[in-house]
């Protein structure tokens, strides 16, 4: 116990600024090294446990390999997938659809959210339409988009954009309205110009909301693109899932899903990494949420 306390004190004094002058000063609450490392330990442990239960179900319980192929078989199928020269283009197509849809949602979502957040009457006016669009299960539109835009990537991009649009737009609308009154007083008191007020106060206030929306939106974009590919077309990872299913190739089906999980995780990590660079000051960055 004492050793961990000592270590704690060491990390704080090491290269840190002189201790606060005030009696009530709270030292910058540093997370203990243990807390910081915890997810890096628990993550792999859970993965190992999952693989263990999986292998146990296959080899001991004897679940049919059509229902649950052995982990080794899935790894083998993954190897086969990567041996296929086509796989690069499938990944590329899905990635393109996700990123294009996400990009459109980001631009349109920020623009619409900022506009509605600033113009109260307009927001009131479009409220019924927004609620209606929000509660409708949007993936139900995929067949319509296929009719309108064909079996190519366009219908999938639009599906991805539609799903990703709402979390961004709603968050930005909230963010634009969340400017602190005290901060406003400061800028008004200094006689700040409209542009300076935007640059130094409104934009930094809204950015955390943009990222909160983007973190949800990137996941939704992947869903949109995959569902789109399920329903039509002959390209992308979603198509590979469906074709594996039709061929009753369970190991390949699982392998593509693993690939999709990795792709989704990497995209999410990319968004949070950008967030950490752009708003390092924000609480969500500091606590790692």
């Amino acid at each position, binding site marked *: 116990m004492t050793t961990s306390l000592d270590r704690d004190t060491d990390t704080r004094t090491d290269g840190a*600024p*002189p201790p*606060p*002058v*005030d*009696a*009530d*000063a*709270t030292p*910058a609450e540093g997370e203990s090294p243990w807390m910081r490392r915890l997810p890096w330990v628990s993550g792999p442990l859970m993965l190992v446990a999952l693989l263990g239960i999986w292998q146990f179900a296959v080899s001991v319980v004897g679940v049919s390999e059509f229902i649950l192929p052995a982990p080794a078989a899935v790894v083998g199928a993954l190897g086969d997938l990567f041996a296929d020269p086509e796989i690069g283009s499938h990944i590329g197509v899905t990635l393109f659809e996700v990123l294009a849809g996400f990009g459109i949602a980001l631009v349109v979502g920020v623009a619409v959210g900022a506009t509605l957040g600033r113009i109260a009457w307009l927001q009131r006016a479009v409220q019924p339409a927004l609620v209606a669009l929000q509660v409708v299960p949007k993936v139900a539109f995929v067949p319509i988009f296929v009719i309108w835009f064909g079996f190519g990537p366009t219908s999938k991009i639009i599906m991805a954009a539609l799903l990703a649009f709402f979390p961004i737009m709603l968050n930005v609308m909230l963010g634009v309205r969340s400017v*602190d009154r*005290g*901060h406003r*007083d*400061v800028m*008004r*008191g*200094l*006689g*700040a*110009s409209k542009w*300076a007020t935007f640059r*130094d*106060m409104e934009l*930094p206030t809204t*950015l955390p909301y943009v990222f909160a929306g983007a973190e949800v939106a990137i996941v939704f974009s992947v869903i949109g693109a995959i569902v789109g590919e399920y329903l039509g077309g002959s390209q992308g990872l979603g198509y590979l899932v469906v074709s594996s299913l039709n061929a009753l190739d369970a190991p390949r089906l699982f392998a593509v899903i693993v690939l999709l999980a990795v792709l989704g995780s990497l995209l999410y990590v990319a968004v949070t990494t950008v967030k950490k660079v752009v*708003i390092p*000051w*924000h*609480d969500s960055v500091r606590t790692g949420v």
Partner: protein
Amino acid sequence: MTTQQTPTATWTPPPVRRDEFDASGDTAEPVGSRAVGLRVAGVDKTYTTRRGDVHALSDIDLEVGRGEFVSLVGRSGCGKTTLLRVLSGLLAPTAGTVEAGDRPAWVAGRRDDAVFAEFGLVFQEANLFPWFTVVDNVALPLKLRGVGKAERRARATELCATVGLTGFEDSYPRELSGGMRQRAAIARALACDPSVLLMDEPFGALDAMTRDRMNLELQQIHAVSGTTVVFVTHSISEAVFLADRVVLLTPRPGRIRSVTPIDLPRPRTVEVEATAEFGELVVGLRRQLDEED
């Protein structure tokens, strides 16, 4: 009793001590300007709310001398914050004028940004921007004036030293204690050498010991910078400790009840609070407040 009971507050020349600062410091008086820092004449403020009109301020006349420290005291709801917001340019008066160095600050309900840019504001909350480090927060007024990056950083670092924040320049506000945040807010207010410093219960949210120390430091900052200060507080002893004059406001509608000159010698230390003179001043003001009930 040293209390002056006339409701109209006219300013008497500052004590000799102040002149010494002017002579030695860089606060030389501009030619032709009278030594008035802030003049408030006939200010009236009525709010229109859903439940009818609220008369918040009635016929406020006040002159604050250059370099003078004036405290506004009164019960909550007496209009002292409203008055300070009018002086700060954040709230338009319904009637009356506010002048800084003979320049009108409010013209027909519209604020003259150039005049208010000369004012430094400190609020009850520090209101630091969480996305800026301490030094960037302090440098904000300079940034808005187009001062170059290196220059404003140098100036802000100096100001951090003035308020005792050396070593915390690159910290974020959330890493500071309440007292340190308020120091940073004061440094920010001082950044563009304000001719008038307006403070709205800046230490109200701090504990008593931190508050005492901040009062001593504020006295020091005021003595060195020689700026005019208008300081709103609900603590009579804080008002007496800091001020050259204490202005007592009474509510519904907010009006000036009395103006009390405080002739305690400076620099004042915590011991001054134990003197009979200090006690008499506080009791006298307290009695005036109680007469309201």
